[in-house]
């Protein structure tokens, strides 16, 4: 054990949901494991661990990334936000309400990742040439066929327009 602790790398300090988190484990550990196992934030799901399904999507400095492919060390010095943080935001609640109205959720396993991606796109709609379906290119949903999700986003946008008039 002594020998092992000598080799242990220095602790990382990550910023997750505005909180400082010390990580003394493997610096190459996937960020998703730090989030789920170390911090107990299980809103971020694991569907494949190979970056193909998008269930583990979180935000790093506001941009959606698949946290299964991000080594913990590379998140140091950046702002990580998970769905647990986003649900406190007013415009996230508007998205939730619209998803409920349109049937954008069924089994729910892909849903947190999709919600994170959608919320991020709603903050900067210039991304992906303004096309939300393109923004979802890294999120697989097997239940809904996506159309209800796209309609939900359209409605969020339409309601904002209405509110501004």
């Amino acid at each position, binding site marked *: 054990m002594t020998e092992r602790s000598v080799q242990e790398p220095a602790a990382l300090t990550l910023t997750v949901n505005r909180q400082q988190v010390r990580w003394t484990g493997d610096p190459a550990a996937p960020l998703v494991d730090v989030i789920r196992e170390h911090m107990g934030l299980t809103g971020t799901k694991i569907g*494949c661990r190979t970056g193909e399904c998008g269930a583990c999507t979180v935000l790093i400095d506001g941009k959606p990334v698949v946290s299964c492919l991000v080594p913990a060390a590379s998140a140091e010095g950046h702002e990580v936000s998970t769905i647990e943080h986003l649900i406190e935001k007013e415009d996230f609640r508007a998205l939730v309400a619209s998803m409920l109205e349109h049937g954008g*959720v069924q089994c729910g396993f892909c849903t947190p990742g999709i919600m994170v991606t959608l919320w991020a796109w709603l903050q900067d709609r210039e991304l992906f040439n303004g096309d939300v*379906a393109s923004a979802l290119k890294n999120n697989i949903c097997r239940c809904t066929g996506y159309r209800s999700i796209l309609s939900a986003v359209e409605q969020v946008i339409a309601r904002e327009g209405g509110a501004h008039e």
Partner: protein
Amino acid sequence: MNKTAKSPNDLMSKLQGETRYIHDMQLPGQLIAGVFRSPYPHARITRVDVAKAKEVPGVVAVLTADDVPHYEYGPTKYKDWNILAKDRVLFVGDEIVAVAAESKEALDAALALIEVDFEELPAVFDPEAAMRENAPVIHEGVGLNRPMHVRVERGDVEKARKEAYIVRGGRYYSNRIYQGYLEPIGVLAQWSEEDGLTLWAASHIPYRARETYAAALGLPEDRVRIIVPPIGGSFGAKYVLKVHVIAAVLAMKTNRPVKIVLDRLEDMMTAHPRVPLTFDIEIGADREGNFVYKKLAVYGDAGARIYWSPNVMATACTRADSVYHFRNVIAEGHLCYTNNSPTTCMRGFGNAEMLFAVESVIDELALGLDMDPAEIRMKNIVRAGETTIHGYKLDSCRLDECIERVKQLSGWERRKQLPPYRGLGMALANHVSGFRAIDPRFDGSTAVVRLKSTGELEVETGEIELGQGMSVTYARIVSKVLGVDENAITVKSGDTARYPFGIGTLASRSTVMGGNAVQRAAGEMLNRITELARQTLGPEAVFTGGVIRFKDKTYTLRDVAAWHRAQHAGDELTVKASYVPDTEMPDATYYGHPSPNYPFAAHVAEVEVDPETGRTRVIGYWAVHDSGTIIHHTMAKSQVVGAVAQGIGWVTMEDLQVENGRVLNPSMMDYRMPGAKDIPPVVVEFIEEPDPHGPFGAKSVGEVALDPVPGAIANAIAHATGKRGMRLPLSAERVWKLMNDTSDQ
């Protein structure tokens, strides 16, 4: 309404990342477990050495066939399962050794140190080859490697064949589809002498799972409890699974909780995909386009053990005959063992596969007769009031209106003037709302409605939420009966120790079977509340709008709950009701009325095929359904669109490729499923006529929404290219070959 209770499947929780699936659960002292599997499709095991694996620090248990029970068991009447393989492995992925450890690192180290010697045996991978005389025997005593041989015959097909004016058909192939649930397969098992075995397992038929696992372990059924956490997708894959049993034996041996969650590679390598079926089909018609016969042979690959393939085979051999009047039908089904991973059901359950072939052949007949494909269908469909050739009693059927409406919505008249490489295709479908033969002992469902002391209502059912919307549907049914806000109604299910028995969510059962039970229980609750109010207050008391009104005063359900508890030693007001449908067990000839009612659908797909690459893009889709009264429009529509998306994936891109028993594309990268850009707008309409047997007139939605999709898209591609694809998927490569006459058919 200040809601204090939440269903575990609450949709708001799912949207906020608050739902806890198996992967999110931890128990104190929990071990992590894994399985050493066969690398060969068929081999004799000559040596198993786990000594080194046992020495790895952190390893708590290493079990081989010598350490586990060997009872005859299986989830269907074919009892061919084991827990761990003893002498012989039958497919790549067959389980040989189970390991439980303190950490993933210890588990992986132990699995890598397991030594097993094999003597490879000849293997067979195709059902027709499996029936040949010199084929390797997969299970002793099963002649021709064929555990199931279906023969259905009505009328005189040979006579009709001679009289037919036109005949079309050929050999059609439906492929292996990975169900593609986002939540990988997993389980958490715990054992104690007091409580017996508890499994947190995502089974949507948990009572059958309980019965199966109890038999595997030699336990009485009531020593096994299955708790079903929210299920992250299944589509038929997560009925009853071997890894659940393996976790159970490990928990029993170690006296500690044991968790297994497959990673995506293992999940796909060992997947139990949709049963691949080969159809030799022929349909004949007279000069006017009236069908005169259908002749069919089906070859099904069960894989090395029986999961739900027999039920899929029986469905493929019969159900389409209750969409159209073929007048004379004959079908022979051969379900065979092979050395592939066991196959099982996926949404559509043999009907979607069969309808791909049937709907394709019908379009070929229309072409041969120079008829509109919609017109030939309209001429031959079943109608309300009829009893079909296999005994289905159609008390409601608006298939004719579905056809008319889908023509209008899709602009079917455009079909003749479409630009090159564009096509419109139509297909129809039926399905069941529950199926009598799932459990020969009984049919139906039971529900409890409970008035809690808070004045809120809880509904308890044995059926299972899969995300299809069962919970919100049941809440709405109770709300309609009692006039209570549906948000004050919580739906609970998925615990064999707490909630009523249920056959489970399969065969599109939940809305009609469970819904009828819920409606009855709610009706009884209405009577009980009214009675109690009259006793307590006086005969003029009325229960309306979710409250009791008496003279000029209003009392809430919270008051009612207190009145009841005062009179019943504190017990809650609870009612329980069962719904037993008037269905008939299909007889030995497959004749009978197996479902309370039958939903129908007519779909139209529009495609554009790229002549350079053969790639198909579905650019429009219209789905018109007769599912009786729709109880929850939002979720019903979401079911239809989701099913269409699965069908688009199936026909245009998905194929679980298996060669010599080995999956060639076990990742989501190599097994591509549709993304948001692959799905066009889908127009969904419901022709709502109440069916006399459904709750508020409802029929099922979940599977009938997928059944017509492969046929509709295949017909659209044939229309666009002038070439008939007979093998799914109609991938870019395959369509290109068809268009360039280098078909691999």
